[in-house]
């Protein structure tokens, strides 16, 4: 215990666990050693693709909500989003990446996603 400051909680383990989850998912520097340079770059590229995919999906949902898509358009958008999601799953599997790893810490702006 420090001199004056106190940390009071009945659930220390839960808070430690949550704080560990919020640690930066990407290292401060790109770890570009020969063994994992591919994975490091894939992580960066897939993070950006994932961001664009989520933006597209959100925009589509807003249009569904506003009933501004015809049935045909919903069909086509659904097909596109489903294929995109499947392709992302495939790529994540190839490079051994988990969903929570696809993020970037933007400092004072918080996390990208």
């Amino acid at each position: 215990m420090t001199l004056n400051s106190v940390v009071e909680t009945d659930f220390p383990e839960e808070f430690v666990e949550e704080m560990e989850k919020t640690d930066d998912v990407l290292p401060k520097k790109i770890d570009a050693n020969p063994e994992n340079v591919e994975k490091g770059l894939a992580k960066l590229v897939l993070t950006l693709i994932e961001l664009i995919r989520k933006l597209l999906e959100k925009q589509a949902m807003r249009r569904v909500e506003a009933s501004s898509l015809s049935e045909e358009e919903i069909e086509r958008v659904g097909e596109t989003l489903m294929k995109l999601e499947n392709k992302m799953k495939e790529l994540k599997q190839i490079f051994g990446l988990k969903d929570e790893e696809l993020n970037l810490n933007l400092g004072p702006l918080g996390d990208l996603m």
Partner: protein
Amino acid sequence: MKLYTYGIIDSSKQINEPIYGLEGTCVYNIFYCDIGAVISECTEPVQNNTKGNVLAHEEVVERLMEHFTVLPVRFHTVFDGRDNLLSMMQSYYKDFRDNLDRVRNKVEFGIKVIWPSDKIKEHITNAYKKNDKKVSVPGNSSNKRFMREKFEKYKLDEEFEKKANKFINVMDMFFSKFAAEKKLKKLKTEDLLFDAVYLVKKDDQDNFREAFEHIKGPHANFKFLFSGPWPPYNFVILPKNNDLLKDSRQKDLFDKVIQHQDLVGADTI
């Protein structure tokens, strides 16, 4: 001789009582104009973020807080001699003065809240299913089923965020009453609803504490963490583009202070 730095204080006088820092070294003040950098001498840079070292650093800062206004410096900030330290003090003098004036007679408190996200989601899902007027995606093709599932998730997430904002706004309203400044992050994870630091006048400490107890009372299924009073780790603002500090070890003098506080907090737990 390398100088391990603990903080910047609003005094150009020597510290009256003996304070011991990392590895039992004597702590003293090197002043520039009317402010000072509190340091201890070390031969090798301290590399280990051990619990003992972090707590020793924190203890020095807290001792200083009893007598001075302190801008706590990041753990493991080492200057290569007195000239380098004074050069840094000269470069940042105005910023240090401004920050010292801002945080004078104030301390930092941290509040974190975990909420039962699973139960909240369950409740939202049940309410959504019962809602007859909801917009949905008709049709039974795989593409439309995919869109329907996505839309339901979108609506549930939206409702989840609305509920979170409602709780956060109420809590923040109580704490902000007694705070001069704040930094608040919502839903850092699905469970970690509220993660905030508040800069509170020393005279308002008891009121702030009372506000916390008041909020905690009616939320029996929420988990709370209260910490402080801390030095104002999260409220020191320095210009990012100041290129006067060439040494990379010293460039981010006050950066990542959150990590420092987390480290102290987590270790203290």
